[in-house]
């Protein structure tokens, strides 16, 4: 997805500059910097524990940064800063809604927290319910909702007050394919309306579909960022090869790493993921080497370079849940 020229020329809605956050000896976020323009969807892609949620918490003013600075719509953000929070709509990974209350009551409550009142609030609540496809279930307690309906409401609360920056933290975790697709379509529509979106995920296909630019984060560090094509160029066109099977010992990984056209090897419990240059021509040699090293192979899969390849290229590890 390419970035429109109009978007690039507008002042950034979000600027994250050298943010650091430590928890004791652990540095959860280490010098992360990026920016998002109006109408742009920025993806933060990384595995669980990479530092995505901590970064989001700092941006949303829930956590203080130990170093660096976050600016939202030109205002400096922090836990004590109340005014800049009006520009943000946060959709947390947890279903942060009151289960005893109805969808309408939940929306109205969070709308009031945003300073909305009277008919402006009730009209907007009705509008968002319509947008979410929840108008006919607006009065029932949300504890009776399906997982997908709760996810949609969770997103609706973030959208309610027309924020300039919408932050979505893994919004499709645990969602059925139909609801997931509906959520992705909603996010696509938002960027068209000019809203800046920060989208964290560990699903590369979501990042590829939605995001104008993607930042790859691992171990609290932003490893690389750019458009999908920018990132793919980093892999020098290496393909991803997945070998599934059992008896994946360290000797198997070592034997494969020794092959000249194999760039990276990451061993999982039932799968080896490799970056291989010119994989279609080299796969037979790869399979023979793995078998000779003792691996009991059950399957081989070759895929063209994608964000998974980029992540493996940058970190030496596969992007898993």
């Amino acid at each position: 997805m390419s970035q429109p020229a109009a978007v690039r020329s507008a002042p950034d809605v979000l600027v994250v500059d050298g943010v650091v956050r430590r928890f004791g000896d652990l540095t959860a976020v280490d010098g992360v910097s990026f920016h998002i323009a109006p109408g742009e969807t920025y993806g933060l892609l990384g595995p669980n524990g990479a530092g995505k949620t901590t970064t989001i918490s700092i941006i949303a003013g829930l956590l203080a940064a130990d170093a660096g600075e976050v600016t939202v719509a030109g205002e400096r953000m922090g836990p004590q800063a109340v005014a800049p929070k009006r520009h943000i709509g946060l959709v947390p990974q947890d279903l942060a809604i009151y289960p005893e209350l109805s969808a309408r009551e939940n929306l109205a409550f969070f709308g009031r927290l945003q300073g909305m009142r009277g008919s402006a609030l009730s009209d907007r609540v009705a509008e968002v319910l319509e947008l979410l496809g929840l108008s006919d279930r607006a009065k029932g307690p949300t504890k009776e909702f399906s997982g997908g309906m709760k996810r949609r409401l969770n997103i609706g609360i973030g959208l309610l007050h027309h924020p300039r920056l919408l932050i979505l933290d893994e919004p499709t975790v645990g969602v059925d394919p139909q609801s997931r697709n509906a959520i992705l379509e909603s996010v696509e529509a938002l960027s068209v309306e000019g809203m800046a979106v920060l989208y964290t995920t560990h699903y590369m296909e979501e990042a590829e579909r939605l995001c104008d630019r993607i930042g790859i984060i691992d171990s609290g560090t932003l490893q690389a960022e750019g458009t999908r094509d920018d990132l793919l160029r980093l892999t020098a066109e290496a393909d991803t090869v997945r070998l599934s099977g059992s008896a994946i010992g360290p000797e198997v990984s070592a034997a494969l790493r020794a092959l000249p056209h194999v760039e990276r090897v990451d061993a999982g419990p039932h799968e080896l993921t490799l970056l291989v240059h010119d994989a279609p021509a080299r796969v037979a040699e790869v399979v023979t080497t793995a078998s000779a090293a003792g691996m009991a192979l059950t399957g081989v899969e070759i895929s063209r370079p994608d964000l998974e390849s980029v992540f493996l290229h940058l970190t030496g590890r596969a992007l898993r849940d």
Partner: protein
Amino acid sequence: MSTVLAIAGTELRRFLRDRSNIFFALILPLLLVLMIGLQFGEDASARRALVVGTESPLRADLITGLQEADVRVAVRDRESALEQLARGRADIVLVVDDEAAAAYGSGDVGVEAVLGSQATAPLVQRQVTSVLSGLQTREGQVTALTSRGVDRALAEATLDDVTASSSAPTLVVRNLDEREQQFSGMGQFDFGASGQLLLFTFLSSLTGAATLIQARRLGVVSRTLAAPVSAFQLIAGQVLGRFAIAFFQGAYIMAASSLLFGVDWGDLSASLVVLLMFSLVSAGAAMVVGSLLDSEGAAAGVGIGLGLVLAALGGSMSPLEFFPETMRAVANLTPHAWAYEAFADILRRGAGLGDVLSELGVLAGMAIALILLGSWLLRRSVARAM
């Protein structure tokens, strides 16, 4: 302020939305007020007589005489009356048979009596004897007048005039029993109502603390802080929400017990101030429990356990006046005991706001300490969860 009210209003709405609270917060307290009132109220010391026999002047005069002596009288058949007596529901059964009814006109007054085992039975027996003695005297007077040629109706009217014109001697009874003095002026349901008000106000607050834990666990508290809401507003909203739940519970028991059982809450403004202070203490305790614990189940367990123990120690289940001295001192560590004393003064002794200032002061101190501790714990738990 509107943000604080929005948070507080939502907490109260969540409490009312919980269907189990319809029974536990609205029905159960009133059932307990009723049961305690029936057990310990004035009904227990009422004197009751059952009369057996067909309608006759003797039966009518006996019933009238006993009722004038504040004895509750009911007419039953013999079998039913004896069964009621055996069950302890009456002090005495009086059998007015046809022979006794016939003899009454000739000046001979007497009935068969079966005495129960109640503590009040001998007293009722003496009252029956006194009434019968009075009837016999009157019959004797009527017979004496009619034997001298006076018409019976005129004789009875003359005796009525004599009775009406003579004034009975006044007897002033001074109660020297300290315990009875403490309970004098208390209505049948007063102890149950004030005790259950304190028990359920505190209990509902503590068990309601589970909703604060749920809000923290679900991330609603964090999401609230991601809106333009300061930590102070969040905490103030939560405190106000807990207070609203506690005050609603107490005010409901106050209103319902007044309407259903005729409980007189004395100086209403003073009673409401006591409830207000006690609700603040309850809100503070709920903040502490809701911020300290991380599991809703644990909060419900701790809430019920702590609520019942403190209520028992503080005189909500058994009057503080029955406590030995040491336990009375221990009771003063609970907010319930201070609120109990304040309500006792207002309900039984007609005290006003100025008379219960010391109790209110202690409750205010407890409320401030608990609210500050709960607010600090909530702030710490929110920071820890991020």
